[in-house]
């Protein structure tokens, strides 16, 4: 018998726990030559802002040992373009569409969510309050529990759709921001976004990235992300979307065992466009090999004696 793969993120029902992470999967169609997005549990869009954003100057990408730095800087065409051009194309994705929302003020976040709330093809929102490339009152929102709480509260009132908040790992104690999200009424937390890093071209003694620093992703960060998911799952009761460095089913299962209800896959797409599919299939075969009837039995099953 096949094991059940469906999971729930609050009221958001996913047919399987494998989600394409924001910013690495475009608007859902870019990888269509390689896999059917309908195979995924959900797709999270590149972060959308109220107005068009140019993004940072190139180079924007740099490989590091076991990972990569990026400093895209939330390049996107803005809300109107998204509604007018991108959303219609998302209509027949065959999976849940989660829109990632970014901004510089609470009003901007709230405004976008309010506007998009009426779009039926959108299943949920993910608030990107963790992108290390944009500063809000001199801080990344997610690095401040108070700011996080207020923002989530403000946005919460604008939608009844599931509200996911994506946390920054660049903090002393991620359980505190996670708790702020829970207290403010979020349905789920998503962790982790990228870790702020840097690379230097020693021949020119200049930063490799045009923006000097960038966010580290990929397998290098997996042990850190996994630890954070485990910490948060011990402290709050919301379902967690866990990710950071997931390249294989094995990695994804580690996150589920640590307490994530679903997993997000980012950098892996660049290495293997079919990564999400292989992860989904790998989870399924692990479940049947270990005689689990339902993936939910795996979630948070870590035995620490």
């Amino acid at each position, binding site marked *: 018998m096949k094991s059940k793969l469906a999971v729930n993120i609050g009221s958001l029902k996913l047919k399987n726990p494998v989600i394409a992470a924001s910013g690495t999967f475009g608007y859902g169609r870019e990888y269509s030559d390689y896999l059917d997005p309908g195979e995924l549990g959900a797709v999270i869009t590149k972060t959308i802002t109220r107005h068009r954003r140019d993004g940072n100057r190139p180079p924007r990408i740099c490989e590091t040992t*076991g990972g990569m730095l*990026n400093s895209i800087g939330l390049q996107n065409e803005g809300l109107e373009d998204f509604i007018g051009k991108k959303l219609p194309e998302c209509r027949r994705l065959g999976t849940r569409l989660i829109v990632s929302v970014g901004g510089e003020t609470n009003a901007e976040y709230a405004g976008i969510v309010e506007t998009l709330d009426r779009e039926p093809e959108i299943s949920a929102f993910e608030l990107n309050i963790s992108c290390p490339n944009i500063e809000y009152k001199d801080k990344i929102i997610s690095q401040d529990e108070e700011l996080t709480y207020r923002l989530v509260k403000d946005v919460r009132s604008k939608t009844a759709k599931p509200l996911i908040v994506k946390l920054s790992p660049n903090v002393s104690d991620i359980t505190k921001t996670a708790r702020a999200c829970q207290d403010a009424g979020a349905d789920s937390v998503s962790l982790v976004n990228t870790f702020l890093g840097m690379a230097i071209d020693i021949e020119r003694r200049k930063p490799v990235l045009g923006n000097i620093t960038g966010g580290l992703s990929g397998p290098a960060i997996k042990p850190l992300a996994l630890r954070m998911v485990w910490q948060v799952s011990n402290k709050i009761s919301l379902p967690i979307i866990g990710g950071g460095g997931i390249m294989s089913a094995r990695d994804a299962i580690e996150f589920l065992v640590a307490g994530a209800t679903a997993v997000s896959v980012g950098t892996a797409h660049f290495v293997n466009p079919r990564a999400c599919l292989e992860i989904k299939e790998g989870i399924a075969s692990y479940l049947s090999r270990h005689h689990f009837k339902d993936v939910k039995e795996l979630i948070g099953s870590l035995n620490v004696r």
Partner: protein
Amino acid sequence: MKLEIIRNVFLKDRYLLLELSAPRSFSRAVPGQFLHIRIEDSSDPLLRRPLSIHDLESRKRGKSSGEKTIVKILYEIAGKGTALLAEKRPLSQVDVLGPLGRGFDIKKARAANVIYLLAGGMGVAPLYFLAKRLSREKKKIEVLIGGRNKDHIMREREFRDLGCEVHVATEDGSLGLKGRVTALLLERLKAARPQGRRAICACGPKPMLAAVAEISRQKSIPAQVSLEEFMGCGVGACLGCVIRTTFGYKRICHDGPVFDAEEVIWTE
């Protein structure tokens, strides 16, 4: 997609020619398009490496009736990934995405009577494939190849075999004109009698392409340039590989790698 390596040989010093056995669909590839290659099933290197299509060939498949398509890649050992690629032996495989990107606009190029192909260093890689396609058209094709010294100049003979006129510039003067390939271009433009429409297609380092764009603007000769940038996805999903254009940042992997020179903002 896993493609089998047929040949992988040093041409000189740090330059190799790789031949891959590809499905028939590859015969639709356009000059300027590239493959995004995963060299090892390892996290070191982690990301794929973009390499242009240098040539396409159809070969009879032994006795059976079908033809097989061969994709050729001309590459330089630039770091870890290409060094590992250089160690690969025939019969082993590499994991390939592609052909990817928007190549040279052949229609636009062949609207001219004389086409100048400008290669800086490894820029010869896609231009040979382009020359091959354009050589069907009975146009005059001048190939101008620039490099640091004569050891960096490649494929001269192959271009000549296609019927192209080939000129060389080296920075140290060890072969051809002493100087830059853009100086060579200016010289060739001057030498030529005005013969109607001309076009430039160029591939090489960004400063060279910027100089080409400037010449293109001054002389009102349309130029297409093929750009490079670090790449993540290679399919337009990550916005990692952009170039500033008059329409904002565009993705080199998907909107390019070939752009109209006038569209690119070179000052960034």
